[in-house]
Structures are given as C-alpha cells and as structure tokens.
C-alpha cells in the first residue's frame, strides 16, 4: 500500500467512526442522565425508532429540518413521560416497562411508516457543514470538521453533560437521587421530579439519536431502522461507568471497531465476514475487562423510591 492509500484509510476509518458514533452518543448520554438518577430505561431503542420516524415524516411533508428535530424532541418527551409515569409514579419494574416501551416504539414506528409512507423514500437531511478553516487542516480536517451539525452537537454534549453531572448543583442532586433517594428526600429534594426530568431528558436525547439516523446520516426511514442500537447505547453507559466521557470512549471504540471491520472486509483480509462483524462486540467487552474500570453502579439504580422504606 502506498502512503496515499494508508492516509485515505485513516481518514475514512475515523470519519466513519465519527458518523457511526453519533447516534450512540446521543442515546447513551441520555441514558447516562436517566441511570444516574436511578432509572434504567431499556426502551431507548423504541424511543429512537419512533422519533426517527416522526423526524423523517416531518421532513418528508414539510421539508423543514427544524420541524424534523422538533418532532423528534416531542416524541422523546412523550415517550419519556410514558416511561416515567409507569416506572416512577407507578413504581413498575423498570426492566419490563422499558421492554414494553421498546416493543411499542418498534411496532408503532413500523405501523406509521406503513400507513403514512408505504415504501422507502429519501428526504434531504442535514447537509455536511464544513467548519471554515478547521475543515482544511490536513488529515484532521476531514475527520473532525466535515460533518452534519448533529455530529458536532453530539460531541459537544459530552463536555456539557460532564459539566452538568460533575460541576453543577443539578448533577449533585441527580447523583444523590440515584445513589440514595431517601437522603435526597430528607433534604427536601423531590426525588420523583428529578427522576422524571432525567428520564425525559434521556428520552429527548434518544429522540435526537433517532433523528440523527433518519434525517442526518441516512436520510430515510425503514422498519427497525436502529437495529438494536438503543440496546448497545444502554450497554455503553455501563461501559462508560455512568460518566459522559467514559460513554464517549465507549461509543468511539465501538464505532471504530465497526469502521475497522468494514475496512478489513473491503481490503480483503481473509477473515470470514461474520467473524469480522463480531469485532466491535468482542472488543467492547475485552476493553472493559482489561481496563479494570471499577466505577460503582448508582446504588438505587432500578429501585423505585418509596418514602419510609429503606
């Protein structure tokens, strides 16, 4: 291979990684908020699907990308509310309600797609937004600064989320509610309200994750468009140890591995495709195993709060 080609390879590899990582970042950062407040939302995939559909549909009929994003956000709010009412107010088992939400999102998005759209159509989604000057930096420019706006937003959310969780009063409250709701409650904090807000914020970010697929990177909708990416996003929260930066490394590692295995196949490395397809999954587990990260689970994760019951 000549230098030029290996340069193409590196640029292509990393550029694809950034694109693939975007929906994971949105969804996993959202889930990070939700889980830090003590709620496991396994319904992320369903929220992504339904939001992806509504974002797509809004753009399809109105042509307005802003309305597309708005549709995704509203869908996120509504689905987040559904999860919250069931899991927080009604104290349901979070694993089950999340799976219910996922089934609902999957079914509803396919149904609406079939009834309202009928067949695969494309829309013109967010264009590539090359950042002036920066995008012309050799090598780095094409990797980092030639993406659609949602990619930038996803990556900017990482430091923002970090700041909120680690440096703001909100973060302190959120984490206290996830670690020891009774303690937060005895300080006059409304535990359920904090959880509602976190779950809804998480769902809105999951909604943006869906929109980033349907109106930014793929510009279309199809049944089960996410193909289980929401579940991977949940897994990445564990990978990242409930920290936004950790989640980002997870999303990058997973996407990098996927990008890499595609290159392996394109370059004809003699490995069966199915085994190459396993790479991201194996690598994620192995990396976590070797990294020895020991971040503790939010102690009240998956436990509804009932005042007076320890």
């Amino acid at each position, binding site marked *: 291979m000549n230098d030029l080609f290996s340069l193409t390879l590196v640029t292509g590899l990393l*550029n*694809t990684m950034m694109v693939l990582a975007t929906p994971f970042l949105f969804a996993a950062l959202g889930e990070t908020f939700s889980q830090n407040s003590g709620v496991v939302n396994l319904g992320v995939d369903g929220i992504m699907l339904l939001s992806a559909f509504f974002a797509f549909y809004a753009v399809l009929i109105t042509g307005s990308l802003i309305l597309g994003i708005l549709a995704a956000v509203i869908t996120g709010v509504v689905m987040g509310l559904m999860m919250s009412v069931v899991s927080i107010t009604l104290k349901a088992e979070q694993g089950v309600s999340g799976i219910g939400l996922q089934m609902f999102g999957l079914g509803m998005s396919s149904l609406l797609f079939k009834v309202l759209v009928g*067949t695969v159509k494309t829309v013109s989604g967010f264009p590539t937004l090359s950042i002036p000057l920066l995008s012309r930096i050799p090598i780095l420019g094409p990797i980092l600064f030639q993406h659609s706006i949602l990619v930038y937003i996803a990556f900017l959310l990482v430091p923002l989320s970090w700041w909120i969780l680690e440096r703001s009063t909100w973060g302190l409250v959120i984490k206290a509610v996830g670690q020891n709701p009774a303690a937060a409650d005895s300080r006059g904090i409304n535990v359920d309200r904090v959880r509602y807000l976190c779950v809804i914020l998480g769902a809105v970010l999951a909604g943006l994750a869906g929109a980033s*697929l349907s109106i930014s990177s793929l510009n279309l909708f199809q049944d089960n468009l996410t*193909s289980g990416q929401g579940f991977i996003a949940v897994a990445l929260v564990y990978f990242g140890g409930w920290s936004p930066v950790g989640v980002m490394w997870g999303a990058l590692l997973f996407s990098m591995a996927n990008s890499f295995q*595609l290159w392996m196949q394109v370059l004809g490395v003699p490995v069966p495709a199915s085994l190459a*397809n396993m790479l991201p999954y194996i690598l994620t587990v192995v990396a976590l195993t070797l990294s020895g990260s020991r971040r503790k689970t939010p102690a009240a994760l998956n436990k509804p709060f009932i005042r007076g019951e320890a």
Partner: protein
Amino acid sequence: GGSSEASGTTKAAEPFRIAVIMPSATTDTAFSQSMWSALKTVQADMGGESAVELVYTENMFKVPDAAAAIRDYATQGYNLIVAHGSQYGSSVEEIAPDFPDTAFAWGTDVNTFGLDNVYAYTAAAEQGGYVNGVIAGMMTKSGIIGVTGPIDVGDAHTYISGFSQGVALTNPKATVSKTWTGSFSDVALMAAAAQTHISAGADILTGSSQSVVGSIGAAEKAGAVYWFGTQADQTSLSPKLVVASQVYDWVAMLKEIIAATETGVYGGKTYILTLANGGLKIGFNPDFALPADVKAKADEVIKGITSGSITVAP
C-alpha cells in the same frame, strides 16, 4: 377483511382465494414486497377483488407462527397458500397432506417433497447478476467495485456469484470487493460499508436489495457512484444513480399456478425464475444514459443466457 363480499353470487363467480405468508413486511422493498406486488398485479389482471381474494400475513420470521398461519388459512379453505420463505418448508411439508384440495406454493427452494399439492419456486439470481456484472465491468473507471449485503447466503450469494463472473468477462482486471454487515436491518452499518467502498475507490456499488437503502445515501453524497439493484426495480429510489436492476417477476408463475389449480393440479412442480422463462427481467433505468456499446453488450449477454449459450454457475 373482505371474506364475505362474494356471498350470494353463483358458484362460478366465487373469487379465487389466495393467502400469502411472508417473513418481512410487504413494504420491505425486497423479497416480501416482490411477491406482494406480484400478487396485487395478478389480482388486478384477473378482475380485481371480486375475482381474487387476497390476504397476507407479514413479519413471520418465527416458523411456528408461520405454521399456524398456514394451517389457519388452509382450514379456512383458501385455494392457494403461498409460503414465501425457505424456512417454511417443513411446515408446508407437514401441513399440505392434511389439505389435499389446497394448493401450496413455497419458495425459495426447489423441493416439492414429492407431494402433489405443493409447488416450489426459486429464482436463478445468478443470471441477472451476471448481466449486471457485465455492464458494471464496462462502466467502472477505477476498476474497483463494491458489494454490500447482510449475509452471504441465498439469492444474495447466487446474485453476487453471477455478478462477479459478469465483471470478470468484461473487465478481468477489476476487483470486486465484498462486505457483509451481518444484519438485515442495520441500515447505518450498511451505509458505512458503502462509504468504506467509496473511500477505497469504488465507483460502482451493488448488493442484495436490503442494502440499497443504506448505500444510496453514501452514493449520493459521493456523486458519481452507480448502483445496480436486484430483486425489485430500484430505479425510483435513486433515479440518478441506479443503472439497472434484476427484477423478480412472479406474475407469470402465479398465473400459471392458478390456471393449473383450476384444472385440478395442485402441485408437484418446481418453478425457477430465469431470463429465459421471463421470470427474471433486467430493468434498465430509462433516465440513465447508458453508453450504446454497453447496452449492446448487455443485450447480447441476455440473449446468450436466454438461449443457453451462456451458462452461469450459482
């Protein structure tokens, strides 16, 4: 609904009742949709809903569910039950003997289990693949052609096999590189796969049809990258980029089966869609300016396969 419309009319006017069971949605722009639209065409050609009653069950990726559906339809007295998925074979084999007056058609496979009320059908996808390959070989400038798909089985496998042979005929130096994503629904990964091919220099892409939706976006962003389709005519998805598609046309086969059942023959025959019997067609994009010599070569190859002078291994 629609099971009661024909009541009150004479026996001769009773509609022919068809039920179809499909592994994915009727809107999958691929395997299931190809059968569903063929059935719709048949219905329209034969005189609409009063002549042909048509019901469907979709997303039956679980075999026991499909088996239940098949039996249910048979019990309800449907005349023809199309089990449109190779995985339904054993269910058809088991259920068909209990309903000797019902015709069953299942594909894609070639096996009728020796039962005289079971038809089998499949498509010789390698033939259309070969034609697509011949055109692609002549059109590539970079000499690099990318193939994407979910997994390397079934008609995806045979299509690509034919395609590679076609490319080798017109452009022996071209490389055909393949990526498989391992998932039928992961469009994002499919798009990334297409993008990767393009980064590696591919100027032509093809793949089994689930991958087209993922690849189009990537291809459109890159500009001058062309797409060859299979299973259904994909021109409408991207009129700029699609050169030609291999189209499965089940209509003729279905009409033949219906005609046979009316003479009391409920099965025992295997249909293989080929270019020769018209089951396979090459749908050229009318808006795509295909160079005349390329078109001529393609026609020549189609003629060769039709006449049997060219054989393509699956």
